[in-house]
């Protein structure tokens, strides 16, 4: 087991990439600490799977290095890297029994029979297939097949890391939750580095200690779920994490004041002059409804009651703005303003968050 470092890594599927769009992965440097539980989050086509396949050695990166500890693994095969990976769709060996499927990776490494048997029994118990061990894999449901795939991924104990590529897509919701819990449990017990690719924020946030968010071939932010929620570094993170995501409104920033739709919003920090598209970002949790002159002009379009709170869907000018109102608070019938909580407002310049402290230093 070792720390995994990606150094100036980039990848293109084209033989001679020239434009920015030609690159599936744009240059990045990233470290995965030994024993961490990571989620790699992003919408489809953002390069998550490419990144995963580079780590496991299925794909050779166009540029940059992959280090395990201090050892350069870039050119080494999957076998030499000693990594386990579970894929999005179940991969089972149809003609083998469940037991043979689970034993397959161990057998290929020449482990003694008794150790294989013990380990297979342990894993079978974990994925809840102890009673089905002698069945042929062919006739099983997609659910069961994916559990076997998961089991095969976890059956080896000495792996450097276990990679999961959206493994729960085909599993039904109840089982999803259970398997995720078991994965966490496994992580606690054996301390493998785990990297879990998903486009589902709930999955990412419940599984991982660290979430890496990718957008358009770039890692836009890596941090704890809390950090991603509190201070999204990129508008995509703000929008992708949270339900509903962060509200973004075009704004003119002057010092510590944001001008939106003729109204003014005070900001916690003063900002210098900026060129480009400036936006004010604030999560629906930190907006409240009001009447009168305070805050921003707001038109309510719809109210959704989701049980523990209500979501107000509406607009400020042309921008869609959502507000979350706790269940016990009344909604004023004539509400026509939203009032932001300045402490949680962020300013974005061309989609990237402006860090006021750093900006002051730069200025």
């Amino acid at each position, binding site marked *: 087991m070792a720390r995994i470092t990606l150094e100036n890594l980039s990848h293109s*599927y084209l033989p001679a990439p020239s434009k920015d769009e030609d690159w599936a992965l744009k240059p990045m440097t990233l470290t995965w600490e030994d024993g961490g539980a990571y989620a790699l989050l992003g919408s489809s086509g953002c390069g998550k799977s490419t990144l995963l*396949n580079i780590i496991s050695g*299925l*794909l*050779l990166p166009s540029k940059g290095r992959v280090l395990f500890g201090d050892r350069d693994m870039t050119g080494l095969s999957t076998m030499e890297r000693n990594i386990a990976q579970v894929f999005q769709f179940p991969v089972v060996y149809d003609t083998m029994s469940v037991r043979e499927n689970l034993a397959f990776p161990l057998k290929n490494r020449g482990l003694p029979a008794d150790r294989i048997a013990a380990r297979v029994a342990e894993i079978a118990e974990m994925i809840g297939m102890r009673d089905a061990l002698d069945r042929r894999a062919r006739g099983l449901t997609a659910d069961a097949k994916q559990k076997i795939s998961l089991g095969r991924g976890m059956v080896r104990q000495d792996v450097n890391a276990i990679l999961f590529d959206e493994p729960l897509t085909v599993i039904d919701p109840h089982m999803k939750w259970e398997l995720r819990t078991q994965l966490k449990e496994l992580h606690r017990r054996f301390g493998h580095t785990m990297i879990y690719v998903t486009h589902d924020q709930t999955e990412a946030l419940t599984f991982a200690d660290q979430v890496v968010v990718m957008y358009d071939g770039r890692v836009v932010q890596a941090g704890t779920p809390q950090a991603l929620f509190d201070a999204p570094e990129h508008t995509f993170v703000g929008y992708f994490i949270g339900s509903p995501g962060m509200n973004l409104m075009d704004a003119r920033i002057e010092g510590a004041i944001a001008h939106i739709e003729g109204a003014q919003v005070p900001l916690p920090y003063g900002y210098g002059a900026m060129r480009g598209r400036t936006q004010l970002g604030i999560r629906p949790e930190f907006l409240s409804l009001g009447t009168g002159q305070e805050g921003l002009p707001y038109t309510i379009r719809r109210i959704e009651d989701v049980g523990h709170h209500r979501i107000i869907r509406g607009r400020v000018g042309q921008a869609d703005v959502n507000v979350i109102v706790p269940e016990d608070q009344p909604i004023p019938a004539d509400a026509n303003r939203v009032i932001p909580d300045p402490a949680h407002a962020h300013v974005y310049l061309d989609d990237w968050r402006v860090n006021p402290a750093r900006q002051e230093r730069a200025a």
Partner: protein
Amino acid sequence: MAAVAESKGRGAALVMVLYLLFLMLPIYWLLNMSLKTNAEILGTFSLWPKNPTLANYRTILTDPSWYMGYVNSLIYVVMNTVISITVALPAAYAFSRYRFMGDKHLFFWLLTNRMAPAAVFALPFFQLYSSIGLFDTHIAVALAHCLFNVPLAVWILEGFMSGVPREIDETAYIDGYSFPRFFVKIFMPLIASGIGVAAFFCFMFSWVELLLSRTLTSVNAKPIAATMTRTVSASGLDWGVLAAAGMLTIIPGALVIWFVRNYIAKGFALGRV
């Protein structure tokens, strides 16, 4: 994935080169001979024609008893393909969408006709078509070839149709389509590649078959393949013309392959992968 493709290295390329060489050499030899005069073929042994000549091809393309062979073949092949596909389409739809009395037996019985040796049917066909005055007509050969092409077309089309979700039919009916209109406007475009593959196979088997087409014709509908056989035995050893005639029979096949090249692999698996 690039990495997977890389695992097939030079060994694979070598295997393919050798195999394709094995396939192409005999054909090349035929081409080589077709461009030589008989004197050169029999006189000197050479890997390529020393004095390439198109005389053999000219002989064929200017003599109606030769080139009408091609025309006859193409006529009955096209007739057969059209008939086979036309009757197979509704039948394949029935097999892929409904259960009905005796369906399984019927399907198997149809397939057994694909298994019937042409030699078994040669004589009875001859008598049957003679007695109803169809002997030596294109339609006779086309109908005879239906014996194995219709079952095959049904089988292939059924495979492709089963891949189309039944919800599409239901949606169309709800939208007020009548069956014929739905079938032509919506369903057939969906299985266009299947129709192409089935037509390809009908064309192929009708084009390459000789036993029945020779038995059922004498002059007016005589296929090119039979013309060749006769010429070999009658005019002795006109190797150059024979080779040229052979080369010309390869061309329609090559053209058809070129058109369906993107479906070949799936097509040969009859849509059942």
